[in-house]
């Protein structure tokens, strides 16, 4: 795939996402406000009723900052679920995948270019909502935003985004055999939400589970980039985390390739 085509697909996806701006902004802001409100009140009650000032290494303001980061960075990582590239399984099921197979380009890269395009609106949201939240909730002192940290976080988010894409790919490829893969995708989303640190910071999990959680791929989607920006991950831990994340990317990359090839062999082009 040529860089020019890659860029074209990338910008096309951005334009599609921003076509209905009111819908996009109202939906995103409502989702952010409701989620952060619910989490705020849950943790306010936990801190108040437990009488503790530190839970899982966070004070109350720290945990609010963690959720703000997780909600915003989560959009960067999960881009695929909100855009048109989420219809890979539909294209297989309907038989419209055929047109891509005859294009003189790689289908995987074609979809990945669109997937990356979805990051642009999420970056705009991150800047606007993140800036407002930091000011209104007075979270500035909690974030560790040095240029080096920001660069490390960008690398972690991009790798997390790729990992998320690679985890979803074999699930969509199941459509070569089954008519509906929606439930598999939702199952993954639930699993990632709890084990990735989206619903709860991983440090509040029982101590015996911490080592296992850091070896699983899910942490690198949410908890890891958020903790990085809060200065809770050292340089050595970042490097180690990136290696683990790369290994998982390789594992899911190989799995995606195997499943896709086997699926393509039996693909008839007329839909199931």
């Amino acid at each position, binding site marked *: 795939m040529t860089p020019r085509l890659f860029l074209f697909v990338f910008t096309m996806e951005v334009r599609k996402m921003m076509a209905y701006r009111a819908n996009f902004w109202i939906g995103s802001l*409502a*989702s952010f406000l409701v989620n952060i409100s619910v989490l705020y*009140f849950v943790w306010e009650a936990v801190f108040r009723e437990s009488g503790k000032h530190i839970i899982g290494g966070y004070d109350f303001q720290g945990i609010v900052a963690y959720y703000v980061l997780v909600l915003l960075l989560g959009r960067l990582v999960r881009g695929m679920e909100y855009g048109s590239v989420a219809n890979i399984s539909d294209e297989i099921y309907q038989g419209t995948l055929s047109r891509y197979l005859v294009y003189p380009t790689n289908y995987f890269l074609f979809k990945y270019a669109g997937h990356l395009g979805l990051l642009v609106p999420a970056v705009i949201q991150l800047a606007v909502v993140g800036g407002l939240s930091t000011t209104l909730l007075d979270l500035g002192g909690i974030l560790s935003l040095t240029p080096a940290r920001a660069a490390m976080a960008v690398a972690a988010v991009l790798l997390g985004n790729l990992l998320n894409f690679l985890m979803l790919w074999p699930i969509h490829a199941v459509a070569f055999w089954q008519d509906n893969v929606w439930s598999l995708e939702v*199952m993954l989303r639930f699993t990632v939400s*709890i084990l990735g640190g989206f619903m709860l910071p991983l440090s509040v999990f*029982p101590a015996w589970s911490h080592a296992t959680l850091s070896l699983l791929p899910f942490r690198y989607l949410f908890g890891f980039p958020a903790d990085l920006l809060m200065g809770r991950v050292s340089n050595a831990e970042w490097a180690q985390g990136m290696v683990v994340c790369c290994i998982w990317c390789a594992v899911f990359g190989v799995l995606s390739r195997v499943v896709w090839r086997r699926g393509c062999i039996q693909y008839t082009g007329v839909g199931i």
Partner: protein
Amino acid sequence: MVRYFRLYLCFLRFSFSRAMEFRFDFFFRVAMDIVFYAVHIAFFRIIYLHTGALGGWNLDQMMIFVAGFLFMDALYMTVTANNCWILPFHINGGHLDYYLARPVSSLFFLTFREFAANSFLNLMIAAGILAWALGRYPGELGGVRVSLFLAGLIIGNILHVLLVLNFIIPVFWMQSGEGLREIFFTFTHFSDRPHQIYPNWLQRVLTSILPLALIVSLPAHILFSGLTWGRFLNIAVVLAALWSFTIWFWRRGLRAYSSASS
């Protein structure tokens, strides 16, 4: 009434035969909901590692609340969710004609036509979790309070469906219902947690204008603290008002409906 009951039995028969045609999807859905149940239970069990109470409830009480929420969700997914999901497409695509021509209530037909047989097993599992949570409760709950709680969950389910419909009906005047559906789905996060944790002004909103707290949280409150006249009137008035408004709103929507590509 008998006619509607027989019609519903036909809906059940068709739904089960259709579900059996896609067996893998059937099992995927069962697995998906088991993961959903595990995630919700795990969330609160982990929270309670750090506190003895949340919203004034201990872990045993919270497990009953969570089980009630899971049961309510399974009931919605089994009985009405598929119908509510497809309804905006029927309206936008002009497919309502078929239903409007039937000699039964169009709202009944459209809300109950498809019974999600593949979620029925999940409903049984959720009912089992609810029975387990009630059975392991160390205190004395009493048959009357448990009955009131279960009745409250059924009423909560009706309220939930009415709320969903009110977020769908504007599709009669709009191009797409997706945005409103997303917003409603977002709001439902308020009902996943006990309403006592919210500030007073938000509790008032969640028990009146947007009665998400009446779906599970208030029935659970009644189970632990008893039914007062205030709580009874709260539920009765909101149910009557929302029911009447939904019927009125639906009829207004039908008047705006102009068949194909409405």
